[in-house]
C-alpha cells in the first residue's frame, strides 16, 4: 500500500459562515456555554494566564540563583516563589493543559459525538478550576505560602504560619475540576462513539486520554483526602500526621505521592496522544504498532499507581518495600520506551514533512527520552540515594514535564490551531520558536543534571560558589526559553485576525476532526458520521479526496 497526499490549495479557502465561534455573541454566551469547544477555549485562555504567572516566578527563581548569595530576595520570598511556581505549574497548568483544552475540544469530535456526555459538568469543571485558581492567587496576594508544592508534614501542619489552608483549598477545588474532566471523558469514550467507531478505530489521542482520565478519577480523590487531613491538622489538630499523638508524618507522603506520582502520567499521557497524532500526520503513515501504543498507555496508567514510594527511598521505608517499588519503577519505564521506538518506527518509509507541530514533536522525543532515561537513574535504588532531593531531580522532572509535556502541548496547539480558529500562524516564525524553545530548554536544564550530581540540593536560595558557573548557564538558558514561550503567545494572537485561512484539513490528516469545517459548527457534525475505516488510514483519505467534489469553505 502506498499513499500520496497532496496538501490542499489554501488560497481558495474561506472561513465558514457559521461556526461555534460566531453562533452566539457576548460574554454571557461564553460564560454559560455548554459547548465543549468554547469551554476548551475558556480553559486555554485561563491556563495560558497561569502559565505566564508561573513562568514569571520561574524567571525570578533563576535570577536569584544567578549568584551564590541570597541577594535578590529574602530566603522566605524565594521559598514562596518556588512553592507557587510548583503549585501553579502543576495543578493549574500541566494537569489541565492538554486534556482540558485540546482534549476537551477534540475528544467528542474524534469519537464522532456532538458534545461530551455531561456538558454542564464540563462547564462546572471550568468554574471549579477558576475558583481553585482564584484561591491560589488569593494565597499568593495575601502573603504567599512556603510549604513547597509537596506540603510535607509536619512542616506544613505545625511549623509554618503562611496561607497553607488557602493553598490547600485551592488545590482541593482544582482537583475536582480534574476529576470531572476525567469522568466526562470516560463516559464519552464509552458511550458516545459514532456508529462504526470501535475501540481500535479510535485515534491514539483518545486512548491516551482515556488512560489519563482513569488516573484522574482514581488518583485525585486521594490527594483531596491528604489535603483535607493537612487542613484539619492545622485547624483542629486531629494528629493523623503528628508523631506525638500517635500519627505518622510519613503517611502524608504516602497519600500525597499516591496521587502525585500518577499525576505525572496524568500530565504526560495526553501529551503522548498528541505526539502520536502529529507524527502520523506528518509522515503520512499509520502509527507503527497501533495496538502496542494504545495498550502501552493503559499499562502506564496501571503501573503508574504502584510506584509512588519511589519518592521515598531514603525516608526510612523498609528496604524490602524499596526493592518492590524500584522493580515496579523499572517496569513502568518500559511502556514509555515502547512508545518512543514505535514513534521512531512510524517515520520509516513515511513521506515526511517538517511543519511546526512536527518540530515540536521531534523536540518532545529528544527531551522525553532524556527525561525518561534519567528516571531510570532515580529508580535505581543506590543511585537514588545520591541523586534524590538534588538538582538532578529538578532537571529530570523538568525534562519530562516541561521538555515532554509542554513540547507536546505546544505541538498540539500548533497542530490544531487551524481547526480551533480556522486560521494559520506564520510558519517561519513558529519554526523559529520551536527551535528557540528546544535550545533554551537544553541550556536551562542540562547543566542542572551536572550540578545535581555535584550534590546541590533543590530549593536552596543560596549555594556554594563553585556551583555558580553551571547556575549562570541555567539562568541564561531560562531567558532563551522565556523568549521561546513568548513568541507563540504573540504570533498565535496575531494570527487570530491576520492569519491565512486554513480550510478544513490543512495537514491532510485522517482524524474525524479534520473532515469537518474549521472552525467547527457548534454541533460538530451536520449528520452523525458513520466510520467505516481504520484510524490513520491515509489511503481512505486519498480516495475520499479524489472522489468528493471539492467544496472548501
Amino acid at each position, binding site marked *: 500500500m502506498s499513499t500520496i497526499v497532496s496538501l490542499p490549495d489554501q488560497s481558495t479557502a474561506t472561513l465558514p459562515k457559521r461556526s461555534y465561534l460566531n453562533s452566539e455573541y457576548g460574554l454571557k454566551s461564553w460564560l454559560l456555554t455548554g459547548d465543549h469547544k468554547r469551554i476548551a477555549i475558556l480553559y486555554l485562555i485561563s491556563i495560558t494566564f497561569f502559565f505566564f504567572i508561573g513562568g514569571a516566578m520561574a524567571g525570578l527563581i533563576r535570577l536569584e540563583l544567578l549568584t551564590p548569595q541570597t541577594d535578590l530576595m529574602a530566603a522566605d520570598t524565594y521559598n514562596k516563589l518556588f512553592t507557587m511556581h510548583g503549585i501553579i505549574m502543576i495543578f493549574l497548568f500541566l494537569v489541565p493543559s492538554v486534556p482540558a483544552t485540546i482534549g476537551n475540544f477534540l475528544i467528542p469530535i474524534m469519537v464522532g459525538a456532538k458534545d461530551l456526555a455531561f456538558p454542564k459538568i464540563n462547564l462546572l469543571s471550568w468554574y471549579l478550576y477558576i475558583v481553585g485558581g482564584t484561591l491560589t492567587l488569593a494565597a499568593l496576594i495575601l502573603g504567599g505560602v512556603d510549604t513547597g508544592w509537596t506540603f510535607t508534614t509536619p512542616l506544613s501542619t505545625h511549623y*509554618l504560619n503562611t496561607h497553607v489552608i488557602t493553598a490547600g483549598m485551592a488545590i482541593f477545588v482544582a482537583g475536582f475540576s480534574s476529576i470531572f474532566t476525567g469522568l466526562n471523558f470516560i463516559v464519552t469514550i464509552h458511550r458516545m462513539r459514532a456508529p462504526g467507531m470501535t475501540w481500535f478505530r479510535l485515534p491514539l489521542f483518545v486512548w491516551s486520554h482515556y488512560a489519563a482520565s482513569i488516573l484522574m478519577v482514581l488518583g485525585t480523590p486521594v490527594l483531596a483526602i491528604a489535603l483535607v487531613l493537612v487542613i484539619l491538622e492545622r485547624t483542629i489538630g486531629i494528629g493523623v500526621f503528628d508523631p506525638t499523638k500517635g500519627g505518622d508524618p510519613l503517611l502524608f507522603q504516602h497519600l500525597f505521592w499516591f496521587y502525585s506520582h500518577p499525576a505525572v502520567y496524568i500530565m504526560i499521557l495526553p501529551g503522548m496522544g498528541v505526539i502520536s497524532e502529529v507524527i502520523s500526520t506528518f509522515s503520512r503513515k499509520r502509527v507503527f*504498532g497501533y495496538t502496542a501504543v494504545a495498550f502501552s498507555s493503559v499499562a502506564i496508567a496501571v503501573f503508574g499507581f504502584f510506584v509512588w514510594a519511589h519518592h521515598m527511598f531514603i525516608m526510612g521505608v523498609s528496604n524490602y518495600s524499596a526493592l518492590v517499588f524500584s522493580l515496579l519503577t523499572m*517496569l513502568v519505564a518500559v511502556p514509555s520506551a*515502547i512508545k518512543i521506538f514505535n514513534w521512531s518506527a512510524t517515520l520509516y518509509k513515511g513521506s515526511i514533512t517538517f511543519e511546526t507541530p512536527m518540530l515540536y514533536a521531534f523536540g518532545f522525543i529528544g527531551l522525553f527520552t532524556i527525561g525518561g532515561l534519567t528516571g531510570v537513574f532515580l529508580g535505581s535504588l543506590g*543511585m537514588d540515594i545520591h541523586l534524590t*532531593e538534588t538538582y538532578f531531580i529538578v532537571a529530570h522532572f523538568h525534562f519530562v514535564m516541561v521538555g515532554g509535556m509542554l513540547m507536546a502541548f505546544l505541538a498540539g496547539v500548533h497542530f490544531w490551531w487551524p481547526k480551533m480558529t480556522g486560521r494559520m500562524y506564520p510558519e517561519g516564525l513558529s519554526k523559529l520558536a520551536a527551535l528557540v524553545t528546544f535550545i533554551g530548554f537544553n541550556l536551562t536544564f542540562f547543566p542542572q543534571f551536572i550540578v545535581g550530581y*555535584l550534590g546541590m540540593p533543590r530549593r*536552596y536560595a543560596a549555594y556554594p560558589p*563553585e556551583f555558580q558557573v553551571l547556575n549562570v548557564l541555567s539562568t541564561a538558558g531560562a531567558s532563551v526559553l522565556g523568549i521561546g514561550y513568548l513568541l507563540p503567545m504573540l504570533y498565535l494572537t496575531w494570527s487570530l485576525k491576520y492569519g491565512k485561512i486554513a480550510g478544513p484539513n490543512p495537514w491532510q490528516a485522517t482524524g474525524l476532526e479534520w473532515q469537518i469545517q474549521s472552525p467547527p459548527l457548534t454541533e460538530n457534525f451536520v449528520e452523525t458520521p458513520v466510520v467505516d475505516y481504520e484510524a490513520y488510514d491515509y489511503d481512505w483519505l486519498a480516495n475520499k479526496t479524489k472522489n468528493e467534489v471539492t467544496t472548501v469553505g
Partner: protein
Amino acid sequence: MHYFISPVLWQFLVNWLTHFALFPPEASSIAPYADALYFFLILISLVGLVIVAALVFGFSILYRKERNPEATQIEGSTLLEATWTIIPLALFMVCFVWGALLYFRIYNPPTNAMNIYIVGKQWMWKAEHPGGQHEINALHVPIGRPVQLTMISQDVFHSFSIPAFRVKREVIPGRYTTVWFEATQPGTYHLFCTQYCGTLHSQMIGEVTAMKPEDYEAWTAGSTSGMSLAQNGERLFASLGCNSCHSGNAGARGPNLAEVYGSRVPLANGSYAFVDDAFLRDSILNPTLHTTSGFAPIMPTYQGQISEEGLIDLVEYIKALHSNFRIQQTLNTSEVQAPNLGQNGLKAEPTYTNLHSLQVQKSVQTQKQGTGAQPGVVKQ
C-alpha cells in the same frame, strides 16, 4: 583579550571559569561504586539516545517528502516490538539489581562501625560523639573506619547529605534513621540538608572534616566536653528517677536494664521485641506501647520532658549498662540522704527538660561529688 576589559574583571572571569566543579570528589569507600553505576547509567542513556536520534534523523533524511513522495503503510511488527520491549527491560533489570545491591550496601552498616548521633533541627545540625564531643553544623570523622550515623529530627523532616561520600538519608521526627560511610580521603566536604525544611533551609549546611586517624584522635582529645554521652545519661537516669524502678532488684517495678541492649525481650502481648535504639527511645516516650512481660504498665510517659539529646544520652547509657551496681549505689546514697536533703536533694531536682548537655556538665560534676566520692556529705 585582557587588553580590552578591566584587569579586575578579567581576573574575576578567569578565576570564575577555572574554579568551578564538574564532578564531586570521591571521598568514601562507597563513592567509586556509586560512580560506577552512574557511568553505566550514562552509558546506556547515551546508547538509547543515540539510537533514537539515529532513527529519527535517519528516517527524516531518508524518507522526507522530497525524496520519498509516497508513504508505504506498515501495520507494525510484533518481532520488532518484542525486541524493543525486551532489550530495554533487560537493561532496566540490570540497573535495578545493581542499584539494589548499592542501596543495601549503603543502608546496612558493618557491625564494627563507630556510632555518631545526629540531631537535626530548624536550621542546624548537631552532632554528638560518644565521647561527649558536640558539634554544630560540622562533623569530624576519621578516615579508614566505618562511621554509622544515628539520626533524628526534633522538628520537621530534614535530610543529611554528604555528596562527596554519595550518602544521604532522611532525618525524621520521632524516628531514628541510620546511614554509614567510610571516608577515604582526608579533606573538608559539603554537608547539606536536602529536604526542604522552612525559611533557612539553604543555611542548614555544614562541613564534614575527614581526618587521618591520628589527627582525629587529637581532635577528639582536644574537643571533649569532659563527659561522655553515657555519663550524661547516667546522670539523667538518676535525676529523672528512672533508677527507683529500673534498679535491677528482684522486686523492682521496672525491668532490669543491664545487658538489655541487643537482646530480645518478651512483651506483655506475647510477642518479642529486639531492643535497639529505636525501641529504647519508644519505651521512654511511649512506655505502654510495648510493655515488657511480667510488669504492670505503670511507667509514665516522658514525652516533652526530655530533649532529643537527652534521649540519646539515655540510650547511650543503657547501651553501655552491663551491671546494676552503680544504679543501686546511687539509689542507696540518695535514700540515705533523702531525709536530710529536703528540697535540694536528688529526687527533688527540677525536671530535666531541653537542657543542652553542655549546660548539664557542672551540675553533674557536683552531683558526682555528692553521690560517689563523699557519700555521707551533704552538699549545699
